């Protein structure tokens, strides 16, 4: 096999912090190469160096035997390296065709040739095996589709190296399948595809070789078939993670939360379940199955048409998160950056946000109490932080998620709903979050966990509700729920009653 890209002994520091410290990576023509590592291992910095956002301090990158020109996104593009980010940033007001060709629209006679641009875009999408109406604007496109547009753009640039940074994090399994097919098409066309993911099953399904990074350096490169999942995890964390999802046995008590026949037109229909004290209740389903919509409605963020929600026997009113909170409900939202945290604000104010009323004396928030409260929770959740008054932006994803958890636990809820609790969190912190949830259940909290990561739901939950297209299709006990059964129900391969 011919090597396309070689990175040797790459280093990069940011103000004294070594983000890259001896990275070696070789990419071959026609391979899908997994780049693995915990958050903070240096993957992003490496990708950004390839994208032209950063330049290396030392070390070399060669592309097709020639030195790779660094430090300009335009130069990276021109040399045939394309990076597809987890959440692509398209131009929402421009057509799909123009999004593909932006800045390089096909011209004839010195002016943009729209019909040629549209037909070339159609051809690109067709070569990826998808059919898009290229004249529609990119506004409202799903993340999966946006990624496809980015890939088409990469192809139009004749990219030979296509880097996908956690492309599947926000995709449903159908969309993941489609993306995999696209990646395999790229591979068969001779591109080198770099695939970054926290989901090891995907890596085994798709990739031929893997390079594992830890603390800014490469730990090793090997064919994927030579490694087991456990070996990869060991390489990533440098220690044994005996159990990824430690579920502690908890005493299950009386019913705390009752959801009766909840319906919201166009969103979900006839959802009923109850959650008991000390129970972890999982909701599984594909993205778009209505999982998040149901919990949003329960918490009162979105309205619903029919049905009712009871907490400890009393009715949770419609559309009022603040009343739901007072009754003892808490919701850790899906997107912590957007919905969960005030990013520029300090850890202390973020933690205290839900209980500000208790900290007010004579119309003024007492800063001392705020910090004390935040510190107590930080200790309980083993938050890694330098200063309780520094902004949450500086924390890693996993620690940010702990702050969101702290903020809601501070309300002393009876039922804690967590939506995608570990999205984009590294393996180590992930199992810590799981242990926390498990411990709290043991202490008598009821937890509702919504996740698109099946191992997470399966590993954590006492019972699992499976949703498909807005309806509940199965309610499984822990021992009944194996991956095949849940996926079967979620995709409609198995039909529930």
């Amino acid at each position, binding site marked *: 096999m011919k090597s396309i890209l070689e990175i040797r002994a790459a280093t990069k520091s940011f103000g004294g912090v070594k983000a890259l410290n001896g990275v070696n990576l070789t990419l071959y023509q026609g391979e899908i190469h997994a780049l693995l590592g915990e958050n903070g291992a240096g993957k992003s910095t490496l990708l950004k160096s390839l994208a032209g956002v950063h330049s290396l301090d030392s070390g070399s990158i060669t592309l097709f035997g020639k030195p790779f020109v660094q430090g300009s996104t335009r130069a990276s*593009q021109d040399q045939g390296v394309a990076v597809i980010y987890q959440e692509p*940033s398209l*131009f929402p007001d421009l057509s799909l065709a123009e999004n593909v060709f932006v*800045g390089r629209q096909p011209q004839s006679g010195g002016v943009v040739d729209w019909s040629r641009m549209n037909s070339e875009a159609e051809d690109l999408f067709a070569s990826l095996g998808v059919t898009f109406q290229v004249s529609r604007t990119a506004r409202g496109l799903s993340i999966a589709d946006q990624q496809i547009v980015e890939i088409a753009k990469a192809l139009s640039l004749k990219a030979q190296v296509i880097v996908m940074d956690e492309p599947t994090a926000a995709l449903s399994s159908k969309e993941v399948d*489609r993306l995999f097919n696209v990646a395999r098409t790229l591979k068969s066309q001779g591109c080198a595809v770099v695939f970054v993911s926290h989901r090891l099953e995907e890596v085994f399904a798709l990739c031929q070789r893997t390079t594992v990074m830890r603390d800014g350096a490469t730990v090793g490169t090997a064919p994927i078939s030579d490694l087991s999942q456990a070996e990869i995890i060991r390489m990533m964390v440098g220690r044994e993670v005996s159990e990824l999802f430690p579920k502690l046995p908890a005493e299950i008590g009386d019913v705390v939360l009752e959801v009766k026949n909840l319906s919201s037109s166009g969103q979900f229909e006839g959802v009923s379940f109850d959650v008991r004290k000390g129970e972890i209740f999982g909701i599984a389903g594909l993205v778009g199955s209505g999982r998040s919509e149901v919990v949003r409605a329960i918490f009162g963020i979105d309205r619903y048409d029919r049905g009712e929600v009871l907490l400890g026997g009393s009715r949770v009113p419609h559309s009022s998160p603040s009343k739901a909170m007072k009754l003892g409900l808490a919701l850790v939202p899906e997107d912590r950056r957007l919905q969960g945290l005030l990013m520029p604000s300090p850890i202390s104010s973020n933690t205290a946000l839900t209980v500000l009323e208790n900290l007010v004396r004579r119309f003024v928030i007492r800063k001392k109490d705020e910090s004390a409260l935040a510190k107590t929770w930080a200790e309980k959740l083993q938050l890694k932080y330098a200063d309780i008054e520094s902004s949450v932006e500086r924390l890693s994803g996993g620690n940010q998620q702990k702050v969101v958890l702290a903020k809601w636990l501070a309300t002393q809820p009876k039922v804690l709903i967590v939506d995608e609790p570990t999205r984009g969190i590294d393996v180590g912190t992930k199992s810590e979050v799981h242990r926390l949830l498990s411990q709290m259940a043991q202490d008598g909290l009821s937890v509702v966990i919504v996740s698109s990561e099946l191992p997470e739901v399966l590993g954590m939950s006492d019972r699992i509700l499976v949703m498909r297209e*807005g309806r509940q299709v199965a309610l499984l006990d822990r021992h009944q729920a194996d991956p095949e059964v849940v996926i079967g129900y979620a995709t409609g391969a198995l039909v529930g009653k």
Partner: protein
Amino acid sequence: MRELPVFLGVVIVYVGTGLLNPIFFTPAVLNDILFGVAIVAMLAVAQTFVIVMRHIDLSVGSVVGFTSFLIGDLSSKGFSLIAVLAVALGVGALVGATNGFLVAYLGLPSLVVTLATLYIVRGIFNEVGKGQTIVESMVPRELNWLGLNHLYIFSYLFVIVIVLMVAAGLVMRRARAARDLYAIGSNPQAAKLVGIPVARRIFLAFVATGALSGLAGAVMLARFNSASTQSGLGLELLVIAACVVGGVSIAGGTGSVYGAVLGAVLLQEILLAIGALGIPQFWQLAVNGTLIICAIGLDRYLSTRTKASTIMGYSK
């Protein structure tokens, strides 16, 4: 088609008013609308360049007033028409370049920068034009003629604006550099990442807006046959109103010069309709305001109507 609602508005107001008061259907009234709208329409065309980039240029009212004065003043001192037009263009371009430099290269917000240049240019204008008024005898003969004559029933001033609009429309649709403006307005971060020279584009767009606004001083002088330090006062808001009503989104990324001109026509038409229907003039301003809110409401509705969905493969 984002221009469709405003086009329908233009037709409905015209036909509706005409049915209530047939005078509205006479060529004289039509001409009044088109003659009267020329200045705002031309400035709206110019303004579109910056608004699609998610920027704004408030200095155009001062610029157009100042250049209309300069054209009259200099030509009365014996300068040729070409020379005075070049000065108008140059003054506009200079103000545009100042705006563009501060916004593109120093990263200052255009709202504040152009508010500042609005005052600065008006201040210079007050000093230069202290106590002077441009009267008909000082207006270049050619401009005077353009203001008085018609091509069939269309005022030459309106014809000039239409020619400019079509030219600008072609550029906005067909030139890569102009397409970059839409990309910048739609997603400034991404524009940088795909290698668009964002700062240079912003700079040049401000220069273009300024230059065209400076040139609009000629249209203004041709229309009013006079100019004073009060000329063009407050016009910038009417121009922005025309753009917004015409579907040039203040959030950037969409809209066309055709829409901007239609927006200007609609505002002018309503002004005359209110007169023709005997409605107190107070309502004209209130109606303008209502129209702006409707336009923004429609804009928001259109952009949120398309909900996130997967086109192909798995979808709900």
